[in-house]
């Protein structure tokens, strides 16, 4: 049996239709020899498509898709070209240190010496919290875990957070609030594949994770794919083509839409009153709020017709009643708001009213974005968190983790600042003066990025670990060259909570080091006696112990089991040795086992449009690029396909300021301006412009965005800010 088959051998492939029949069958037939290649997963998004790498040098390494339940043998252009990243020009192979204003090559000893000295000097003078850490949702589980441990045990700083705060935090907070637990999809992604009704809220997987669409084929063909998005995205177009629905809402009106649909579910008899009575609490608190969101009122706020809302609710209920599968899935469009947590709670309220969560064949989930967006939010790089999805202010959690780390629980710091608050405090009185960045490019990806860029320059020392000179690395004082995906071993946890192995296919270029080595070395240099192992497998075994008993319990997941092809979804412990593909079937993870309706209301965007800034800007991704684009912009084929920075706008809106297709325009908000080529699109709402966020400099979309933060999740308002469009004189 091949490794390929074993890893995917969970019985679900029998029902799959492979996307890429020829190549995948050919690979599948190969024996697991070196010649057959290395089975690993994609460098990019949270779907973590399975792929096989052949070749053993940077130049001859080739990527082929591999049969696996999540991607069914498919890969998008990013995945196909991911080997190019390994041979991208500008790969960093030596540490860089800023001298006389220039980044110049330095030895590892010198670079780490500068870092260690700065840490010690700064902490001695200004206290532990004067050194901060910023992580990323693309880091492996081992690195995410070790980074949290390094911050709490070696640096003993509370100042650690990561870019996942800007990704999954609202969905996570709302999930915990209602279900007692946050796992993006509480069921295998393949469950969606049999559903006849799927409502996507602010999700555009046709561009953000294309192979995910294979799981939507049945719904689309049944006319049951429904997409709520301000734009007619390729995903929404697919829905419409199949006879499904596009709910073209105004940005930031998602909560009103969800409450209006909940209203309709109740008044038109689609609510599952039995489920509400038996398996939930709090309906009586949410319903009176939804009752005031008459669909006719929601229509005025969202721009979504009552008939469309009604049809969407009816389609979900019909699929549920006929046992043909009904799912509601949210993503960043709905979540990345200053009211994101409440908005997701409203969406969950709709799902609960329809009785979808916690039952086989139906459900609610959030589509995790970053490569390790799931695992990365579980193991302690979040300001308020310890490994295993434990809370840092929970004494029992502190005691457990401190014991694993061999330290006194009292020595563990408490919760620190959230991502934007952390970055905007840099170099201020009482704020951090030294920052270490791992797996993130906040100069491009932070909200109100001009402010964040300014704060970075106020630091005494900025240390960036990356394998390319990202916009953030370019302004660093020390740049440490690290490994990238195909050069390292580790695990990632995909969007459905399944733990996957990342495997090494190549030896890293001479001069690069793993972050695990960097932290181990630095810990020693700053006088920390705790052991920081550098072998990923050893780190994973420690992570297992640290997570044991926590909500995200990995204790029974071993590399041996993963390498033997077992499909393991957390929690996976001695009590649940086979893992938990489907959560909540018997009870929710709340203390009383009931899912909670949370009484939330629609508030709307923090920044209203007005005469000066009459349009709403919303941001997102294009298919060819990933996140800040630091990686994908290095791949020539992707750049050629995606073109340059653009602003998508209705032709009337463009011509009102004298702009036409291809013209260069400035998009201006109260915080900054972004230069982009006009792309006219008749399907745009006339009051909305869309900007992709993959570029820096003048083309940086986040120069515009608003850093109003969600009170619970601290998610910034990425998806709605007031702007105007200007022709360039």
């Amino acid at each position, binding site marked *: 049996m091949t490794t390929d088959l074993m890893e995917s051998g969970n019985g679900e492939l029998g029902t799959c*239709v492979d*996307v*890429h*029949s*020829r*190549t995948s069958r050919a690979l599948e037939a190969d024996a697991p020899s070196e010649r057959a290649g290395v089975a690993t997963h994609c460098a990019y998004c949270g779907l973590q498509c399975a792929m096989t790498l052949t070749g053993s040098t940077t130049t001859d390494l080739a990527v082929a*898709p591999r049969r696996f339940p999540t991607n*069914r*043998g*498919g*890969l*998008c*252009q990013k995945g*196909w070209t991911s080997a190019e990243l390994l041979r991208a020009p500008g790969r960093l192979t030596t540490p860089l240190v800023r001298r006389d204003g220039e980044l110049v090559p330095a030895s590892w000893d010198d670079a780490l010496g500068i870092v260690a000295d700065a840490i010690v000097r700064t902490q001695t003078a200004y206290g532990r919290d004067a050194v901060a850490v910023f992580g990323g949702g693309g880091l492996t589980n081992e690195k995410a875990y070790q980074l949290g441990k390094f911050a709490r045990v070696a640096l003993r700083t509370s100042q650690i957070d990561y870019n996942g705060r800007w990704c999954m935090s609202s969905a996570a907070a709302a999930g915990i609030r209602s279900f007692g637990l946050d796992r993006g999809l509480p069921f295998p992604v393949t469950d969606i594949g049999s559903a006849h009704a799927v409502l996507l809220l602010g999700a555009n997987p*046709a561009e953000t994770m*294309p*192979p995910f*669409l*294979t799981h939507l*084929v049945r719904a689309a063909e049944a006319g049951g794919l429904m997409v709520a998005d301000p734009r*007619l995205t*390729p995903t929404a*177009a*697919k829905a419409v*083509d199949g006879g499904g629905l596009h709910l*073209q809402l*105004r940005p930031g009106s998602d909560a009103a839409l969800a409450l209006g649909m909940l209203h309709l579910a*109740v*008044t*038109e008899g689609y609510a599952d009153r039995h489920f509400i009575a038996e398996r939930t609490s709090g309906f*009586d*608190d949410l319903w*009176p709020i939804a*009752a*005031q969101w*008459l*669909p*006719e*009122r929601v*229509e*005025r706020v*969202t*721009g*979504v*017709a*009552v*008939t*469309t809302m*009604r049809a969407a609710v009816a389609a979900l209920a019909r699929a549920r009643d006929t046992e043909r599968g009904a799912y509601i899935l949210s993503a960043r469009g709905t979540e990345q708001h200053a009211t994101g947590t409440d908005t997701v709670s409203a969406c969950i309220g709709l799902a609960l009213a329809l009785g979808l969560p916690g039952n086989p064949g139906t459900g609610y989930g959030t589509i995790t974005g970053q490569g390790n967006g799931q695992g990365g939010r579980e193991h302690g790089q979040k300001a308020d968190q310890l490994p295993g999805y434990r809370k840092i202010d929970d004494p029992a959690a502190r005691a457990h983790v401190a014991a694993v780390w061999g330290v006194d629980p009292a020595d563990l710091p408490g919760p620190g600042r959230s991502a934007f608050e952390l970055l905007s405090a840099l170099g201020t009185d009482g704020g951090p003066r030294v920052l270490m960045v791992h797996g993130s490019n906040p100069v491009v990806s932070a909200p109100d990025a001009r402010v964040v860029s300014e704060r970075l320059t106020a630091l005494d020392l900025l240390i960036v670990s990356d394998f390319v000179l990202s916009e953030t690395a370019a302004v660093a004082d020390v740049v440490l060259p690290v490994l990238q995906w195909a050069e390292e071993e580790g695990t990632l946890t995909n969007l459905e909570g399944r733990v996957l192995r990342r495997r090494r296919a190549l030896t890293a270029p001479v001069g690069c080091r793993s972050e695990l080595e960097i932290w181990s070395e630095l810990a020693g240099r700053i006088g920390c006696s705790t052991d920081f192992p550098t072998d990923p497998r050893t780190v994973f075994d420690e992570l297992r112990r640290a997570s044991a008993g926590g909500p995200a319990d990995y204790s029974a997941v071993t590399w041996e089991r993963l390498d033997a092809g077992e499909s393991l979804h957390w929690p996976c412990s001695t009590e649940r040795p086979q893992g938990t593909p489907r959560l909540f079937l018997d009870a929710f993870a709340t203390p009383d086992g009931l899912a909670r309706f949370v009484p939330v209301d629609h508030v709307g965007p923090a920044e209203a449009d007005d005469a000066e800034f009459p349009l709403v800007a919303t941001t997102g991704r294009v*298919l*060819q690029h990933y996140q800040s684009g630091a990686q994908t912009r290095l791949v020539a084929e992707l750049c050629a396909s*995606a073109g340059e920075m653009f602003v998508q706008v209705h032709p*009337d809106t463009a011509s*009102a300021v004298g702009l036409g297709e291809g013209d260069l325009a400035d998009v201006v908000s109260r915080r900054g301006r972004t230069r982009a080529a006009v792309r006219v*699109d*008749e*399907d745009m*709402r*006339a*009051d909305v412009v869309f900007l992709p966020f993959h570029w820096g400099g003048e083309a940086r979309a986040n120069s515009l965005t608003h850093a109003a933060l969600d009170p619970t999740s601290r998610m910034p308002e990425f998806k709605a800010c007031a702007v105007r469009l200007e022709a360039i004189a």
Partner: protein
Amino acid sequence: MTRTRRHVLVVGNGMAGARLAEEIRQRDPEAARFAVTVVGEEPHPAYNRVLLSTVVAGGITPRDTRLKPGGWWAARHIDVVTGTRVTSVDVDAHTATLGTDGTGRTGRTERIVAWDELVLATGSTSFVPPTDGLYAGAPRPGAVLADGVVAFRTVDDCGRIVEAAGSASTAVVIGGGLLGLEAARGLLARGVDVTVVHPQDFPMDRQLDADGGAVLSRVVRGIGARLVLGRFVAARHARTDSVPAHVVLDDGTSLAADLVVVATGVRPRTDLAVAIGLDVARGVVVDDRLATSVPHVHAIGECAEHRGEVPGLVQPGWDQARVLADVLTGSDPRAVYEGTSVLTRLKAPDIDLASMGTVDVDVHDPGHEVLAFTDPSRGRYAKLVLRHDRLVGAILLGVGDAAGALTQLYDTGSVAPRDRLSLMLGRAISRSGTTEGVNLAEMPGTAVICRCNTVTKSAIVGAFRSGADTVGAVADATRATTGCGSCKSAVDGLCSWLRSAEPTSPTPAPVPAPAALTEGAA
């Protein structure tokens, strides 16, 4: 309660009064500055009146109409007094007399409370015409109606309709306005044989024009209601041993009516305002700060008349409550209420009707631009009235898909899309971003066939000409179909077309027969 707090006394526990209490608490959450008392005549906690027609239709119960869960008001230090009327007010002494009518357990009681700010949110009452047989006794406003006759205003009315519908097999709804049609729709859902009697030539005549009204008449009849137009009910007769209950119209026609629902409009409740001595026209006259003619006395909701308008819908009352809360608490001292754009939307799953703004404008009116679409046999009618490129009125019947975009255009006063057909559809006429259903022959070479891998038609044609003549071979050569797989049929169609168009020729393909293409692409 300390006297350093100001006491706001709200008369009326309806949707406007209750909302005002809530808005004040949002601005003073700890009740540090304001004590709030809401006095309501009905014995129930505040409920959502707009949902009553849904209760009649059977979707929800009266309990589901509560505005807030039990204990909500008390937990927020809002003193709600139900089953009680404000019987008199002394505007000089700033006091009010609260009385119960003696039907409750407490018997007839009176007490006097002091207030600093008085807000009238007394709403309106159903107008029931003095037709023979509708009242139990002498016809006068507020008098008891005869058995089998229900006005449609309160949750208790709603309960009576539901109860009567259980035994009634026939009902006559007097009045074909919004409420009458919603009541008729609800009764139909309960299996009652319903006739709507309306004195005008078409229902909802205040919101529609004649053409739209004619289409609506067809729609109403189409869902199973009888509709009698241009007539009024002259008398109603209770059941006797020999004759079932019925109504007699002005032309002598008799209609069986086990139940009569009166939906002939509402009148603002201004009796208290008149007694106080406030300026009252149709309603209590208020200015842009919701102030009446007497200092510290305010009015909101359906009892208030603002700039000559008396609202009949909930949204203006809510908007007024927000502004008045800003004014009273000082949280926005400059807050003013400048009116609410009125949009009427019939709430019935099978009648999709929206009406907004100015609609009774002739298609050829020189001062307006009017677009119209009439499709009576399918129950569709759309009329859009524009002035200076902005939507100032619309009737949308049976074209619900467009309602979302159009209501927002109307509300925001934005410039309408230049393409008027798109305007009417509420979306672009041709959608971009999809390759499905597109003629492959006519598609430009730069068109992306495989989005996941950005593979263009030209690239596939090139691969085909280099020998990749199957989907699998094209996939290997270009990666087309290897992402989400949904372009597989398009690639297959392209290969079929190329095979038939240029079996061996390396030169560009002639345009093939469209039929073959369609087949291949399907």
